[in-house]
């Protein structure tokens, strides 16, 4: 019985500790495609993200229309033909740092992490696992990652005429500078 009480106390403490959250609205996510014919790059500096350092939970929310391209026409095609951003305006990621114990949020430094979670875009959700870095700095936490995604996995069809201009795999770059959230 004693054990049970301890367990419940721990789990209660665990829930109570959920207060340590870090957040940003100006995170960066970009992606690029390299082929022999064309280099395409898009940047989004309005990424909203929250990190809960007590649980390792991470969520991201991205407005598709906030991706900006070098060429206005590419941006139009991206929204109109590929992402259908009128129908699917947002992309979200819900995940968790699976090796949270290897990060010491009290000690500034860089820590390698692996994040598992669900990436939703274009109305398709896929489980992904990405490697990244958590950097604990004075007054905040930075997160960065580079990983690849395949547009076809998200039912984004690229027709034959432009098949050679767009790479089969896109490289995604994530750079987030979190600031602490005052607990309510």
């Amino acid at each position, binding site marked *: 019985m004693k054990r049970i009480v301890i367990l419940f106390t721990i*789990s209660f403490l665990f829930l109570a500790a959920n207060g340590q959250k870090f957040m940003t609205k100006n995170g960066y996510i970009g992606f690029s495609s390299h082929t022999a014919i064309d280099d395409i790059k898009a940047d989004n500096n309005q990424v909203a993200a929250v990190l809960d350092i007590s649980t390792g*939970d991470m969520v991201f929310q991205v407005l598709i229309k906030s991706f900006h391209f070098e060429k206005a*026409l590419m941006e139009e095609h991206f929204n109109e033909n590929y992402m259908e951003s*009128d129908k699917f305006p947002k992309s979200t990621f819900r995940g968790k740092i699976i090796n949270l114990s290897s990060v010491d949020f009290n000690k500034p430094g860089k820590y390698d992490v692996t994040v598992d979670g669900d990436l939703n875009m274009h109305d398709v959700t896929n489980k992904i696992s990405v490697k990244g870095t958590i950097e604990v700095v004075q007054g905040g936490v930075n997160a960065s990652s580079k990983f690849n995604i395949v547009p076809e996995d998200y039912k984004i069809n690229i*027709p034959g005429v432009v098949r050679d201009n767009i790479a089969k795999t896109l490289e995604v770059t994530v750079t987030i500078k979190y600031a602490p959230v005052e607990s309510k």
Partner: protein
Amino acid sequence: MKRLSILFLFLVFAASLSAQDDLMNMLKDSTKAEINYTTATFKSTRVINGHSVQMMAPGQLDVRISHRFGRVNLGAYEFFGLDQSNMHFSLEYGITKWLMVGIGRGSYEKTFDGFAKYSILSQSSGARNMPVSVSALTSIAATSLKWADPTRTNYFSSRLSYVGQVMIARKFSPSFSLQLTPTIVHRNLVPTELDPNDIYAVGAGGRMKLTRRISLNAEYFYMINSKKYMSETIYDPFSVGFDIETGGHVFTLLFTNSLQMIEKGFVGETTGNWLKGDIHFGFNISRVFTLKQ
């Protein structure tokens, strides 16, 4: 004990799940409503012959080449019109988000033309709700044919005509857009005194997406002036065509009863009658180059 640890695991799991939802909600609370501007009401800056509400983005150059062939009812000897060809080409450039300019030349009456198009309102939803996009066009055209009678005093101003136009458009759904286009054409010199110097017309144009890259467009201008007493029989221009989009190109394959490709020409000078088969096959090619990023 085993049961309890399962319960415990379940609790932690449930806690972590709801935690992610909580985090998501934090984001929802924090994201402020943004203005969501409607894009691509039309695929190019033209519905078919006439201008659409669409602007060229700043720093982008649109090189346009258009052809109208002869009337299809000319028969097999003229290869259903394809033996004859009338062309117009233009360079059009976006200066700012709300201003674009263009210059062009058409083979019909050896006409030079120039225009400026202004974006006045942009359809949007979200933080600001605007039901329509509105653009305005002013253009000038100068013919350069040799004077019919060089012996009399000829004024350069006789070669000129002006157009003022307002485009009011709404993208009703991702696949359907509609535009109304009140138009005034002023011609400095007209063939006879029966012909009015000012032509008033209202255009209607629409676009329906058939696939992601192909849309069906149609366009009609209703001339308000009485066409009865003009020196030549004039018809309202009606055109129907397909926009085919590939990367930086938009191809328009079309059928129309007007031979001319600028406002001054197809409004008020269209002599083809659809019902008699005075139909021209034609195409527009638009190729966009990014000059400034």
